[in-house]
């Protein structure tokens, strides 16, 4: 049995040559590649079912409160949603191209694609952050804290006790998706949508405020609308002028109804969970980027890029469904 002692060491010196990036318990790179991809697909199927819960929640609530959904979705700006959809699709493309270049062992192109994907991810989070902070500002939030208030009005009752609570509650939430938004890109990217919004009566006035200084609401949670006072006020007047025209005031309507907050609850759950997945994706892409810069991946071994790509595409898939369900009710 003495030979057994040596044979224990064998697996690395197996019959066939064992490439460095092939783990000891696999025989061939193909086996390892297939195993990893298969594993990732199984994981993606768990993700699908993970989201399925929220989709059921969405459907049930919508079944019981159809009007609330119609009304609630007017608080979302489909332009921002659409832009985010396009951003994600683009980043999906760059990811897929990244896999392509990895397969062709084209290091530079791979790195470039990953950087583009990363930018896309940050842009998405930036826009999401703008949407969130605007909703927080106007108390268009979930549950018993739902109390839609136009920007300038919000500035007036800032001393309302539950209100401060909401804001702080909210920033805790908003903070994490927003983490990306300290990057230069989102501010720049969001300038465009914000501008587009200004011209819109229904679209909320104050998008521009957080866009100009993203970090602001997080610092001063309770009294953040005081910080936004001027811009909020200015935009508010504009809204009032539009308000002259006999168009229905969604804010007042929503206040009367007792179930509109449910839509916002669904909205924050779905986009929040999706946002967390995007953040995870950002971390993942950064790791891949480091690996790519170190030149770890080539046509022989690009499994991490491929598998990571699958995950990123799933994030895209989920959003493809979220967009029409939430923004285009």
């Amino acid at each position: 049995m003495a030979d057994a002692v040596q044979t224990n060491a064998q697996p690395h010196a197996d019959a066939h040559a064992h490439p460095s990036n092939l783990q000891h318990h696999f025989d061939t790179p193909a086996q390892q590649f297939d195993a990893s991809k298969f594993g990732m697909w199984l994981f993606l199927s768990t993700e699908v079912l993970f989201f399925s819960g929220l989709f059921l929640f969405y459907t049930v609530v919508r079944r019981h409160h159809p009007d609330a959904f119609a009304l609630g979705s007017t608080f979302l700006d489909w332009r921002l949603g659409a832009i985010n959809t396009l951003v994600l699709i683009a980043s999906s493309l760059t990811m897929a191209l990244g896999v392509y270049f990895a397969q062709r062992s084209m290091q530079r192109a791979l790195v470039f694609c990953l950087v583009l994907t990363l930018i896309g991810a940050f842009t998405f989070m930036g826009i999401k952050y703008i949407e969130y902070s605007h909703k927080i500002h106007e108390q268009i939030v979930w549950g018993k804290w739902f109390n839609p208030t136009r920007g300038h009005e919000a500035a007036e009752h800032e001393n309302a006790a539950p209100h401060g609570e909401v804001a702080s509650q909210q920033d805790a939430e908003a903070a994490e998706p927003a983490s990306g938004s300290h990057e230069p890109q989102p501010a720049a990217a969001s300038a465009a949508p914000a501008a587009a919004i200004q011209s819109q009566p229904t679209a909320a006035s104050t998008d521009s405020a957080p866009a100009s200084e993203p970090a602001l609401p997080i610092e001063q949670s309770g009294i953040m609308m005081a910080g936004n006072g001027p811009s909020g006020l200015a935009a508010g007047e504009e809204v009032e002028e539009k308000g002259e025209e006999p168009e229905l005031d969604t804010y007042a309507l929503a206040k009367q109804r007792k179930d509109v907050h449910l839509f916002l609850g669904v909205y924050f759950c779905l986009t929040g969970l999706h946002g967390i997945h995007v953040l995870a994706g950002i971390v993942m892409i950064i790791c891949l980027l480091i690996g790519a810069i170190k030149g770890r991946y080539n046509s022989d071994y690009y499994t991490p890029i491929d598998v990571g790509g699958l995950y990123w595409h799933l994030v895209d898939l989920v959003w493809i469904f979220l967009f029409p369900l939430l923004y285009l009710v």
Partner: protein
Amino acid sequence: MADQVQHGSDQPRVGHLVPWTTLLLTCFALMCLTVLTVYVAEYVDLGRFNIWLALIIATLKASLVCLYFMHLRYDRSFNAIVLIVAILTLMLFIGLALLDTNSYADELYRPDWDNFAPAITQQRDLAP
């Protein structure tokens, strides 16, 4: 399941190479569909069918992403089976749960909305 290792010379050692033109075309198609879905939702009113149309378009986009971006079209078929099984389970879950939700919609009351308005008014059909 085709053996992954034997591919053309331009192919990587494992996996399948999707030409970049295909990827660009896919992306373009996705963009167009996004514009379409927005257009339909905002400017075409089909009443309650809007949501279904939106979902159909979304499913179309999703399958494009799966087939080309995620290589499912060239991949081992078992991976596709995994995804399909997951989606079937999802439908099963949502479907059966909704069957229940629909049935008790008329038993609901909101204490502060319709102060204990008339209880279950009509007998619901009991034969399955």
